[in-house]
């Protein structure tokens, strides 16, 4: 196997400011070039924190990070100054959940894209502008010329998200981090953006980490899915594997509680309780309090991650187990 583009090992993030939280707990995953990883999880499970950590966007003073992150051969945690600036937006760039909040409201869309391009490439203003316009056209913004001079608030949500994508892709990153890019949008617009992302990924061959809490959206774009719960990755598998053969009780519950045509008229198989508070996690498996399969061991011991053929699971009592004999314990 070739060297992965992204390789995250035992990434742990803790916030120690006046709002304390143990946001990520020993997260590990690999991502090959040209692969799309869907990061699935409920609100507060640490999806955004993972992405932001990958770009080192957390305030340094109040964040403790351990573990390692390697992207395109660079040790991200060791980057400094210029290198870090070149890495952000150049190697890895990000699409935010709320495009309305992620643009500077007092600069036009065009100005912001042009500025980002010039921050990474030695281009004069004209050619940077030209490139920005091309990007706007590429993401199917009608009347790109006019939209170039528009302020963010003058665009609709869908247009803004397209512009955000244009901005993120303007410097041809090798890795795109998409943080719930469609959650704030209407269904009709969401599908447009999903397809656009898929198309652009194919075209550029970049890797994508696609964060969502909507399995449907993940299925549309991802090659493999990692399910997060309480700051950990509890299960990782190919899309088909997750959808058709969920192993972790949480994944199974999530799929079961997704309303669809079949369960009309019947009560939904809901997961009881509510997601955990990352500032006060239970000692064992963080899903144990909501889990119907929970046993003594679950409430006292953190389940270890086992990995078989790129399929990974962290659960003492899975719905359908990864076969023991094929298992090699992942190094802690």
């Amino acid at each position: 196997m070739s060297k992965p583009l992204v390789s995250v090992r035992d990434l742990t993030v803790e916030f120690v400011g006046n709002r304390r939280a143990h946001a990520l707990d020993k997260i590990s995953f690999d991502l090959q070039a040209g692969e799309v990883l869907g990061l699935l999880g409920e609100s507060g499970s640490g999806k955004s924190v993972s992405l932001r950590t990958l770009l080192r966007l957390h305030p340094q003073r109040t964040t403790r990070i351990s573990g390692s992150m390697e992207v395109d051969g660079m040790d991200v945690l060791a980057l400094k100054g210029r290198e870090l600036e070149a890495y952000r937006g150049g190697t890895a760039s990000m699409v935010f959940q709320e495009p309305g909040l992620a643009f500077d409201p007092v600069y036009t869309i065009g100005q912001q894209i042009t500025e980002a391009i010039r921050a990474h490439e030695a281009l004069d203003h004209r050619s940077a502008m030209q490139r920005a316009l091309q990007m706007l056209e590429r993401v199917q913004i009608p009347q790109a010329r006019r939209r170039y001079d528009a302020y963010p608030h003058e665009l609709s949500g869908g247009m803004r998200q397209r512009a955000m994508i244009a901005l993120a892709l303007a410097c041809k990153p090798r890795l795109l981090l998409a943080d719930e890019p469609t959650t704030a949008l209407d269904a009709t617009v969401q599908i447009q953006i999903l397809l656009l992302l898929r198309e652009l990924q194919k075209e550029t061959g970049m890797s994508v980490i696609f964060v969502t809490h909507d399995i449907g959206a993940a299925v549309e774009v991802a090659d493999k899915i990692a399910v997060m719960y309480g700051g950990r990755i509890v299960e990782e598998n190919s899309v088909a594997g997750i959808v058709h053969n969920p192993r972790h009780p949480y994944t199974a519950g999530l799929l079961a509680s997704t309303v669809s045509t079949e369960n009309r008229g019947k009560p939904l198989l809901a997961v009881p309780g509510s997601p955990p508070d990352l500032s006060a996690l239970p000692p064992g498996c963080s899903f144990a309090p909501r889990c119907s399969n929970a046993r003594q061991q679950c409430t006292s011991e953190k389940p270890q991650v086992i990995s078989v053929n790129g399929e990974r699971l962290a659960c003492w009592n899975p719905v359908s187990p990864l076969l023991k004999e094929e298992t090699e314990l992942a190094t802690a």
Partner: protein
Amino acid sequence: MFSYILKRLLYAIPIALSVTVLSFMLVYLAPGDPLNAIAPADAPADVIAALKSAYGLDKPVPVQYGMWLLRAVQGDLGTSIASGRQVVTEVMSAVSNTLLLAGVAGFIGVLFGCVLGALAGYWHGGWIDRIATFLSVIGVSVPHYWLGLVLTIIFSIWLGWFPAMGAGPGGSSEWLWDYEHIRHLILPAITLAVIPMGIITRTVRALVADMLEQEFVIALRARGLSNRAIFRHIAKNTAPTVLAVAGLQIGYLMGGSILVETVFAWPGTGFLLNTAIFQRDMPLLQGTILVLCMFFVGLNLIVDILQPLLDPRMGR
């Protein structure tokens, strides 16, 4: 945009008119006879009556207001009872002095406020923040008339660095931007600058600290922009609010200078107001308040018009 400016201008008219009414009526709240200033202590009754009709004080109040307003729009605010001079010339020369003082003080206050506030906001919670916050609290807490006294004693009496009073060796009528004149300006301007400095420090600090946590700034970082570029973004975003606060503060300085002008014998409106109040010089009082308020209204108007230029979300 044009129609926004027009709308704002039209809106200023009723405000300005109401201000004239208030300014005019204000002096009618006053007990006592406005004529005391004009007549000598033991003037006989017939002299007083003659003066009364000469100054139009024998007509009904609305008529007086109408006449006053009509003349005011033609640039005639009547004659000062106490000095017998044209109120307009009195007020205008004083206003230009006050504007000079308030302008320089405002500039100092805004400049230092912005710098301190930006530093404090950027290193939120750090020691720079603590120092800046401390300075700003002092700025908004210190009774500036007292500060003026203290500064005079220290810097002009003990150290002899700056003059203790006045607007320059030749008076304000020969104002020059030379060393000698600027020396006269420094103490009163610093004294007056303390309040806006404190307020703007606080405003900018809160804005910057808040801004740094906003999604779009994180997004700017994610784009790989340098700190300098990000600072530019933050500056442009904070500009409209800072402009509004600074505009208001500079406006307040125009009225607030009365205390400081008294301490430094600065020949501005504060000085004029003081005289007008204590001599019960009605036309002068009316005129001074009116002109100051008109400048204030105008300043607010400018700020209102500039703001949407800085912030595309406002106006159309």
